[in-house]
């Protein structure tokens, strides 16, 4: 508990966030599993899954915040890392189906049987093991981010150039994943999952467990991000964001710092995707769509950049609004989202977190 008291002094918003996550991680499964359906406080499994999904988005938003808020890289392609993590998890879940698929093939997923493939492609091997899949969830997005960053940062591509590059990256991946012969199920993606680690994905208990795992991942992700941003490396990141040349001329290999923080951010996004897929039950190439990535940027913009908790807040607010609006006024959602982009950048550059910081009581805990 010392961490909470410490956080409460040092970082009140973060402390509140972690406290809420702990409470939700414990309470939500209890309210879902422990109370009967008739009970007024009962949470339906649908709600639990929805909340779990939001938490995954929040983790993605935090990853975007690391890149955009702290490194100044407006990434329009973080959805790619999210989706790659999701695909890695999806491949594990596909392999878990075993012979229970429609075609009942003992080894090949349904879509491969449908495409008349005779054997498992080499890159599908190993994904029957959970640990291996978990490694890939982090390694694949990390590696892609490393390659991309290595090229981009070394040649000092910055600003809008870099942003468009990231968008081109996710766009190219989307095109590639839509192809059947790439071996990831084409435009249908991976779906019809049955179980994870032997637990049925349809069971309430599994759903509640996945929710708790998402809450834990978000909490740990927050602590990791916070550790980085509070370190000298974190100070260096914002220094690079504000004055890249100065940082270089006081002896920092700017591209290395950017690269590793970017890779960390991509890994975080990958983990978010991996938690997301078993909860929604499908992963397909639309997760690579540029719009998906740029939506994540808007969560951060709305919540407030370079605050971490703002990203979480933004992701939760916008996704709740999205769930509500797409159901109530399906046509209005994109209008609303579009207007949000414009209004937040014009009138609320610091986001909701900026508003919260204006509330007077926050001043008391200011720096000495």
């Amino acid at each position: 508990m010392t961490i909470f008291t410490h956080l409460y002094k040092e970082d009140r918003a973060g402390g509140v966030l972690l406290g809420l996550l702990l409470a939700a991680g414990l309470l939500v499964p209890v309210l879902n599993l422990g109370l009967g359906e008739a009970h007024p406080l009962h949470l339906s499994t649908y709600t639990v899954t929805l909340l779990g999904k939001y938490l995954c988005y929040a983790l993605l938003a935090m990853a975007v915040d690391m890149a955009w808020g702290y490194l100044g890289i407006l990434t329009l392609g973080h959805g790619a890392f999210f989706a790659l993590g999701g695909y890695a998890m999806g491949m594990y879940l596909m392999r878990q189906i075993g012979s229970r698929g429609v075609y009942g093939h003992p080894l090949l997923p349904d879509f491969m049987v449908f495409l008349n493939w005779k054997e498992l492609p080499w890159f599908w091997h190993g994904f029957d093991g959970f640990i291996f899949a978990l490694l890939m969830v982090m390694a694949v997005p990390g590696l892609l981010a490393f390659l991309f960053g290595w090229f981009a940062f070394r040649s000092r591509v910055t600003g809008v150039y870099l942003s468009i590059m990231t968008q081109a990256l996710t766009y190219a991946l989307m095109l590639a994943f839509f192809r059947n012969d790439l071996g990831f199920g084409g435009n249908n993606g991976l779906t019809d999952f049955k179980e994870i680690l032997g637990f049925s994905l349809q069971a309430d208990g599994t759903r509640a467990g996945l929710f708790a795992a998402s809450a834990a991942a978000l909490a740990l992700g927050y602590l990791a991000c916070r550790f980085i941003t509070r370190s000298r490396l974190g100070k260096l990141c914002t220094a690079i964001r504000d004055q890249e040349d100065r940082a270089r001329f006081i002896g920092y290999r700017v591209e290395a710092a950017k690269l590793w923080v970017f890779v960390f951010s991509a890994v975080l996004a990958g983990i978010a995707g991996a938690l997301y897929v078993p909860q929604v039950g499908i992963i397909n190439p639309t997760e690579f769509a540029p719009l998906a990535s740029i939506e994540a940027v808007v969560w951060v913009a709305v919540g407030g950049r370079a605050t971490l908790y703002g990203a979480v807040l933004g992701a939760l607010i916008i996704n709740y609004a999205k769930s509500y609006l797409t159901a109530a006024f399906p046509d209005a959602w994109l209008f609303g989202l579009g207007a949000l982009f414009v209004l937040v950048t014009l009138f609320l550059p610091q986001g909701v977190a900026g508003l919260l910081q204006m509330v007077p009581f926050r001043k008391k805990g200011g720096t000495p």
Partner: protein
Amino acid sequence: MTTLERFRNFWPRDRVFDFLVPQTPPDLDLTHGVILYLEGITVSFGGFKAIDDLNLYIEDGELRCIIGPNGAGKSTLMDIITGKTRPDAGSAWFGQQINLLKMTEPEIARAGIGRKFQKPTVFENHTVQDNLELAMAGPKAVWPTLTARLNAAQRERIESVLETVGLQAQIHRRAGALSHGQKQWLEIGMLLMQNPKLLLVDEPVAGMTQQESERTAELLVSLAGPRSVVVVEHDMEFVRSIARKVTVLHQGRVLAEGSMDDVQHDPRVVEVYLGGEPCSTLKN
């Protein structure tokens, strides 16, 4: 050498492989008393020769002023020394051993060349202390930076630099909230944190009040000696107040070099500055 010997040489337990040894530039070698050699440097941008066969030597511990009209190549010269621009021809050596043309900007910075930009460039969202902490000499790779914590000696170092540049009272202020002059000093302070052997200072008093100017002049004079300082400046009065040796650049070449008085009376310099008329800026 037989294969077996080669194999034995490959596996001594006390040895670290070459490619694992961190690449550090050789130590600064000042046996000849010269800290910076620039020879035959030429740079052109799309046909325009910004620097044309330039030769410049800076001695150890010297305070040198470089003056010259706009477009004379002063900023480009700084860019070359710090690795921002690669010359088309020529050589640049730091001491006897270090070839600047083969190094990146951060490597040059870590080797001991600090540069102050024309516009004050500090990390405005960080406190003064954080600015200095970031600039501090020491391991600057990613992992050490992540785990670094300030120890007592380092805190002392920061405080002593703050004292040098006169910003003790501002230690916890956000750098963005400092005045223009204070930012310039902070930037100089950041350079000092790197323990540089050579300081390149680009227009340090631009936009400063008279008082600030004087303080800056004192500061720069006090810095020379243990390290070399090269100042690029337009303000002749300021140059006169600090300079022992002045280099005049014109159209990418060294036009004249010598004491302020020598340079001031050099007819070529007078012509460049005033098209033949006696020079009030230079004379006053």
